[in-house]
């Protein structure tokens, strides 16, 4: 399998000479094509900083990030925009849909930014909508949708451009448990059927149990790593809880 993402000795420091905060302190890992990878950690562990660096929203202090072999820490800001729109897809905790656009237009926006020819847009959205079961709400505005529907629209927007990597930052954070489960199942489907590579940040063990591999981060360093292997989700969840207990963070049992 091809390596999609490779992070090498990534460091991100905040602050000045005398009071340095090491938000990310020498993290290295790789993600292969088709992996559904989770990053877990407590608040302040540096997981969001890590994601921001990978998503090029923030710049790393040192180290390298390769996406399909390109070192994105060395790109100019113009190339970065191009990289973002063609290689990355985003799913945010608060959906980040434009409330002035319909669901259809929100999804189309990702394509128009990519300068996709207009005639290709409709069939691609139709296909994606079927896969995520949002055909019925395409003409609705975000204010007319439920949270779960919004997040699935956001997922559709993230994946319609066929990005190399989908970055999800606490995607279930603002959803009720039923919607969360629906969304995660959709992500799982996308991962399985389209072999989409997903990198998901979460602090929720249940959400994390949908991943195939999980990195645990504490104080800016990798603390532990779990592979799901052939476990059932229940078994995997229990193993996650053990690590989380070790981490001294979240320990909610949703089963």
């Amino acid at each position: 399998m091809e390596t999609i993402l490779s992070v090498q000795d990534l460091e991100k420091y905040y602050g000045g000479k005398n009071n340095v905060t090491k938000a990310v302190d020498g993290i290295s890992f790789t993600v292969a094509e088709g992996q559904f990878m989770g990053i877990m950690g407590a608040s302040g562990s540096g997981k969001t900083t890590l994601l921001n660096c990978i998503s090029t929203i923030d710049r790393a202090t040192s180290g390298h990030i390769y996406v399909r072999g390109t070192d994105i820490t060395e790109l100019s800001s113009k190339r970065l925009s191009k990289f973002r729109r063609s290689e990355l897809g985003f799913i945010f905790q608060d959906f980040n849909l434009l409330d002035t656009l319909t669901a259809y237009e929100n999804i189309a926006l990702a394509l128009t930014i990519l300068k996709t020819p207009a005639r290709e847009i409709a069939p691609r959205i139709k296909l994606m909508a079927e896969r995520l079961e949002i055909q019925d709400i395409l003409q609705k505005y975000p204010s007319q949708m439920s949270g779960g529907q919004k997040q699935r629209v956001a997922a559709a927007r993230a994946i319609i451009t066929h990005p190399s990597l989908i970055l999800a930052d606490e995607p279930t954070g603002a959803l009720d448990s039923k919607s969360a489960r629906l969304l995660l199942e959709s992500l799982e489907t996308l991962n399985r059927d389209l072999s989409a590579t997903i990198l998901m940040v979460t602090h929720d063990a249940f959400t994390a149990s949908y991943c195939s591999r999980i990195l645990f981060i504490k104080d800016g360093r990798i603390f532990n790593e779990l592979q799901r292997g052939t476990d059932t989700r229940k078994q995997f969840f229990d193993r996650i809880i053990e690590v989380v207990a070790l981490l001294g963070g979240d320990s909610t049992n949703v089963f």
Partner: protein
Amino acid sequence: MFSKIAFKNTMRSIRDYAVYFFTMTLGVCLFYMFNSIGEQQAMLVLSETQKQNVQRLTEMMGYVSIFVSFILGFLILYANRFLIRRRKKEMGIYLTLGMSRFRISGMLIGETLLIGIFSLGIGLLVGTFGAQALSVFTARLFQADLSGFYFIFSREACLKTVLYFGVIFLVIMAFNTVSVSRLRLIELLYADRQNEKYRVKNLWISVAVFVLSILCLGTAYAIVLKDGMFQESLSTAVILGIIGTVLFFFSLSGFLLRLMQAGKKWYYKNLNMFVLRQINARINTAFLSISVICLMLFVTICTLAGGMSISNLVASQNEIDMPYDISFTCYPVEDIQLPEDMGARMEEKGIPLGKYAKARSQVTVYMTDISHMEMAQGILNISEIDPLVRPYFEEEGVILRAVSLSEYNSAMKACGRSEMRMAEDQYGIISPAISQNTMMQDLARQIMEDGKTISLGGKTYTPAPEGVSGNSVTNRDYSGTWILILPDEAVKNLEISQRVLNLMYKDGVKEDEFLNTMDYELAQNASSADTAPIYHMYVSRQQEIDNALGVRIMVLYLALYIGIVFLIVSAAVLALQQLSDVSDSVGRYALLRKLGAEESMVNRALISQTAIYFFIPLLLAIVHSIVGLTVVNREFSILYMGAQMLEGAIFAGTIFLLVYGGYFILACLGSRAMLRRTRR
């Protein structure tokens, strides 16, 4: 300490303050310029009459300034409210840190004071230079002489400006203090989370309403164009026009959206979709204010263009023939005898005409029983004639007056113009051009070429060859009605309409001196036994020119003053609304960037949004103005495009571009800065 925080904060939010500052500075500058007009004229060479006119103008500007200060005051208050809203969170943080409300309002007062002093200073500085430029412009436009160019600073206007704007600042400070005392902490801290609910509107309704608005506007235009301004239907047209404008902006964005969605290729290109939706979202809530702004721009354009044109009309009336330096007129009143020789009668009263006049001529104007309609019978189709002179030719119309050939020729000889020759049974017509309009003169020529004969006292007269004269027998004959030139015999039995004495001054005679001498002598030699009049009125060429000049300056300056103030208000409100809209949708733009839209793409979207927002109201206002000015022009024939008119139009256009374009650029820069600041 607090003055330091206030100063730092003001500097930091200088971009937010840009529109506010620009508005204040422009206001101060304008206010000073138009209030210093009186003193600025010290540069010009002025006669007594002109000085009186300047005095009147100064008074007028004083009254208008009160009105203007109210408008500017409200505008500044509006801009201030926008700023306070943007800084709610900042103030919330101060409050949580334990700063007292008293100190916060103190800080705001400090800021207002600082901005106020700066804008007053800069406004006055720019205004002083502006006033100089205005004087030069005035001198050029009205061909007055500059007695010498020197720098004038009007203390009075300066004090007045400081006073008026000081009051405005005080009101704003009071307003800020009240609004700070009313703040609730929870609202302040979450101020940026309250976003407007986006109301969904059915696009097909927009299309229907849009069609309706076009129908309304079309009907309004048709009514005005057909019926003109002085019919009762005007009010219907105005109401339809207002409704049409409001509906137009209510539905425009929805309609455009529908239209563009049909053209998928364009709609799904770059950020077009986003821009259109963004505008649509805002116009849904702001259509009323945009309609008001559009109508205000319409008024502005009409005021500026109309002011230029009316002032030009006044100027072109100067071009009515005034061949004499001064003409005195007597009218027969009841049975009082007119003096046989007006000049002799004046000298009899002690007025030394010979000392001042190098030539004089007396003309008696008689009334005939021939009407204009009778003259033009068979030549003129009444329905085709210009509405200005149509009344002359209607049933019961105006009759022709007449002068004798010898008196006419003596008047021509006195003012050095060519005399007329004709046989004993011929007649001529006097028909001077009015404001370069030779319509009546051409008609007279046509009638004479047609060989129209007239009969008076049992005798028949035929047209004299070359019998049409453009030379008046008295100064300033406004009416443009025809006067016949008849052989001396023919007028003998006609009724007298008026008697005129025309004078030509000797070289170097000052008119003011002559008139003073005349007044003095007449007062000295008055006697109650006198019944016959000396004269009833006089028309002096110089005074007429001066008065016309005065009216012209007045109309022009009023139009400029009010027009520019309206312009500032419309543009400033648009800019502020654009800025507040961008600050509300900063998150949307940030998302575009996260989705990978390039900086240049986002900027282009922002600028096109601002441009559409600025130019759509202007566009409709221009269409309104074209229709409006066409009608006004037809009713008054005032839009006469002379070289001076062009100069005025360029001047007004430049001002328009500077003010409107200035605000447009400020809005673009301000919103871009806002996005850049929230990038991280």
